[in-house]
């Protein structure tokens, strides 16, 4: 790739206004670091991953509102975690966390157990007990 060919697709970027360093060849054949504002191809791939996270947030939010899952699942999705990661972070077995996704069981959880979720998810214990009034994730 030549210096001039480094994509500068700022209007379709996933760098949040930052620029990223890409190596490209100058006229003499030497390589130089070129700051790129974005590449549509890469942005589309990132957006696909972000969409997936967004869908999980929306889905767990509405299920939690309908009382089909606990607020815990929503907070997990909001933190872009999956069951495997939450399990590793809290040291709790997956089946146990899955059990805590059941609203009646979650409502009875002791604060000592909630504290482990609070630490993993970086929320106060009291916050974790119910859904926030408005979704925390951005609506796209």
């Amino acid at each position, binding site marked *: 790739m030549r210096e001039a060919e480094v994509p500068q697709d700022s209007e379709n970027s996933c*760098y949040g206004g930052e620029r990223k*360093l890409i*190596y490209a060849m100058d006229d003499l054949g030497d*390589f130089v*670091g070129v700051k790129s504002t974005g590449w549509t191809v890469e942005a*589309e791939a990132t957006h696909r991953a972000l969409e997936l996270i967004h869908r999980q947030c929306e889905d767990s939010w509405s299920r939690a509102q309908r009382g089909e899952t606990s607020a815990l699942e929503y907070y997990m999705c909001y933190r872009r975690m999956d069951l495997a990661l939450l399990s*590793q972070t809290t040291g709790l077995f997956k089946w146990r966390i899955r059990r805590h996704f059941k609203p009646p069981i979650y409502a009875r959880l002791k604060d000592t157990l909630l504290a482990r979720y609070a630490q993993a998810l970086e929320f106060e214990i009291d916050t974790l007990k119910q859904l926030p009034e408005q979704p925390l994730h951005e609506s796209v």
Partner: protein
Amino acid sequence: MNQFEHRQSAHCESGVIASLLTHSGLAMSEPMAFGLAAALTFAYVPFVKISGMPLIAYRMPPRRIIKGVQKRVGLKMHYQTFSDPAKGMAELDQQLQAGRIVGLQTSVYWLPYFPDTMRFHFNAHNLLVYGREGDDYLISDPVFEKPVRCNAQALQKARFAKGALAAKGMMYYPTYVPESFDLVQASTSAIRANYRGMVRAPLPVIGVRGIRYLGRKIVKLSNDPSLREEYLPLYLSHIVRMQEEIGTGGAGFRFIYASFLRETGKALNNDLLAEASEMMAEAGDQWRMFALVSSKMGKGRKPLNGDELANILNRCADQEAKTWQLLKRYCS
């Protein structure tokens, strides 16, 4: 605050070690660090899953870049992990006070200065801390244009995040940096090691053979009616992310490596390396082409055709194989 000049890099680990060395008086570019570490690879690892998708790596696993440079340049590094986060933070403060620039391994997700679109749970991000002002740590994050800041609580969270590749507070700094090193010897040894990994790997999913394997895998998925519509586009965008998004400097580190070959060729007045650099850059262009065509097919702007994608990957593999055959003459 310690005097430190921030330098933006494409990749965090090669950037961190190149900056640390340059700061300690041994000037080194990021591509040189990457190349001397023999960090280029290709690996398709189906049993390691990243959000449910197979790991596809274009560089050696975390810490290999620092260790590789360490070995070939002959520097000495101090590494330390902590079971108690408070101790980890106190030790960081102490080293900063002693005037050290300290490297840290962190999670990306918990660093507040990352744009929301780039915050994923990845635990092997590297950055340098060069000072502290009140509650804020002054950070040179290699992938950012300018130095950034991070408060103590967030930095602790990022250092001690659990999960795959957990850092456990890992911090490191050089304790001895030589004034110079033998580039002929270091580059020969690095290129030889890299040649072995790319051409002689014992597994069909590693190196040049691994690239062809990925092509066959895509053909297989495209022939399966149940996976073709939903899964395959996700799979393709996953490959593109691994290749481009994760600080690769473009084309899955192929351009960085070409830059290393060019720089070494120039320093040693070696035409073979200059030619290999051009060839590796061409392989990089093929990889960019693969990303472009996959993206078009995934978005439905071009009919999904597994064979066409496999053909591009085979061209990448052919081009890289040719480059390594040439490089073999340099290191044998």
